[in-house]
């Protein structure tokens, strides 16, 4: 085979491979992203309608209620409350008054149905997204008062 033909084959093959890989990656990335929103943002209608998203905040004290395997609780940023239901076994570190991140879809009844509740390794750890939600809510409240 001629030298230039070989080069062209290698370069062409490489380009095709990179193109396919890029297409795969972008496509997969697009359909598997979950946006983080705070409870206040959910209230303001900023949550995506058709896609699953994640809510960060605190599990409100006294809101945990069990109904067989389904657990109902409220995720709050201390300003707005979002009711969430989850069916299944909660991670060990899920607790009232502690930070949590839940991946949810909206159900018909107005309650959000969680498909995933995130667990952490460390009991003193607050998920950055939960902390972020609290900070944001605090700021907007401070702004309203002044």
């Amino acid at each position: 085979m001629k030298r230039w033909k070989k080069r062209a084959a290698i370069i062409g093959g490489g380009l095709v491979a990179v193109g396919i890989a890029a297409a795969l990656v972008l496509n997969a990335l697009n359909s598997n992203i979950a946006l983080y929103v705070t409870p206040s943002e959910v209230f303001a209608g900023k949550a995506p309608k058709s896609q699953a998203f994640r809510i960060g905040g605190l599990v409100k004290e006294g809101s945990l209620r069990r109904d067989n395997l389904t657990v109902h609780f409220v995720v709050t940023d201390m300003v707005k409350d979002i009711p969430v239901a989850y069916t299944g076994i909660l991670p060990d570190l899920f607790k009232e008054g502690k930070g949590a991140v839940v991946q949810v879809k909206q159900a018909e009844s107005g309650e959000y149905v969680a498909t995933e509740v995130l667990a952490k390794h460390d009991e003193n750890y607050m998920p950055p997204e939960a902390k972020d939600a609290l900070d944001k809510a605090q700021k907007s409240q401070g702004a309203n008062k002044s």
Partner: protein
Amino acid sequence: MTPELGHFALILALCVSLVQGTLPLLGAQYARREWIVLARPAAQATFLLMLASFGALAWSFYANDFSVQYVAEHSNSQLPTVYRFGAVWGGHEGSLLLWVFMLSGWSVAVAFFSRTLDETMVARVIAVLGLVMTGLLLFILFTSNPFNRLIPAAENGRDLNPLLQDPGLVFHPPMLYMGYVGFAVAFAFAIAALLSGRLDAAWARWSRPWTTGAWIFLTLGIALGSWWAYYELGWGGWWFWDPVENASFMPWLLGTALLHSLAVTEKRGSFKSWTVLLAIGAFSLSLLGTFLVRSGVLTSVHAFATDPRRGIFILILLVLVVGASLTLFAWRAPKVALGGAFGLISRESMLLTGNVLLVVACASVLLGTLYPLIIDALKLGKISVGPPYFNAVFVPVMTPVLFLLAAVPLARWKHTDIKEIALRMWIPGALALIAGALVPIAMGGWTVLTGLGVALSIWVAASGVIQVVRRVRSSMPPASFWAMHLGHFGVAVFVFGVTMVGGYQEEQDVRMEPGDTVSVGGYQFKMIEVKDVPGPNYSAAQGAFEVSRNGKVSQVLQPEKRNYFSSTMPMTEAAIDAGFTRDVYVSLGEPLEGKAWAVRVYYKPFVDWIWGGCLLMALGGVFAITDRRYRLRVKAASTVPTEVAAGLKGATP
């Protein structure tokens, strides 16, 4: 007193590592022998100082010295002695100390096992390791000193995170770190070769056993971590595409590419620049991994409470390492002579394709891991990238890798005939097609993914077995031959396990009361009772589940829910009946009303093959290191002057 000695040793280690990192390098550059010969003693001194420092911290844990802040935060007087030792690296400060201790261990090993190597080369390698060590020691001393005192001393410690009180933890981080840090040696060899301009077959041969060693440790470390997550976290998964898991997986992918590319550089002298880039990349990703785990910038199951200053320091270190080494590469690489030419279809081209695909896989993992960070930094909102992304990208990229993997050993260097390969691959091909069609049906349902997975694993395994049988008939092959086939067979076993678990596992979350029975995967689980049992530093609710199949009782599983006295967080201990073809897995959720519990029951076919495959891969690596040609060199070189020996080594294929 002991902690102060440890602290002092750490500061001395910094001073010595600075000497180790500079003088031998300058000596090699300006041909000053008295500076070059400093490399080995400096490496030995740093190792001894790090040993003293690490020993001092371990002693503080053993002696329950709660006046040391790090000990007070990670241990407790009730903690069993074994875990007190494991707790040394149970937190940020201690695990970094372990990191540097291991780095000093690797450099002293290089100093010891490289007696036959060119003195200047060794000096450069040790010096580069010294520089890396200096950076990390500065990091420890300025942002994360494990010897900080707590005044007044704590009454008792806060205890080790219960999740980490497990035999798996005692071994998982050291293994993983040995791998991470081991790539520093491959990196140092690459940099030393760039500096000297001696990027030749001899360099590749020196570098190979070290890279393989690091790769073995990383493989075992990742497998251990995955196994630990499987039985300890109580979620029953073995891989979550969590950022921290990805952080260990990316260096592994590049390291695997590096192993194969080094083989080409050694045998054929090609791929030199590519090999150097991979070595730089693998180590940079190891550093990035440390940054991701320790900076707390990502939401991850592994994220521990962290200090942002630390993240910035590692980021600066990372930028310095990557920036300096790439600059050096850009400056020196154009002078690197090209290796042997090769045809469009040859062993080289196939290995190159596999290499590129591994790099693409690594890049896609990197993108998925960093994407949330990038979006956040651009103030476009906070997002997370889910596991389906990684699965969707990974399967199509790795499929051609597995396809090639079976055929590469048959291909010849320089040029190979595709017909010849096809002639020898039709048996494994036919076997793979048959198995891919039939095995999934026997397991209970054919899907594209299970068919593909089974076919690929049989393709790799069958072609390997046939090649081994053919080869053994003529003569006893060298260790490197066994190494390759063991490693590849491990991949086949791994793929088979992943396919089976992914396609046919069964899971149920149920509410159970004593006397209730649930059926999963053909097994019946009957809850007998849940009773309270005491442990050394916890109290537990222990369940008893009778497992039976076709009416025959095989075993009683006893999962636990533990409450550790020193923390408010409960811990799930799953009970697993492991078997060659399947695991059954029971874990307790929360207590419900009355005597009822939420219970999670799993049936996991062939799940242990996943880790078995990893073990085989690692074993392949061990065989690779024991290959005679690495030892022959020692004999040959001890009688022949170094330059002549190096020349000979370059000449032999």
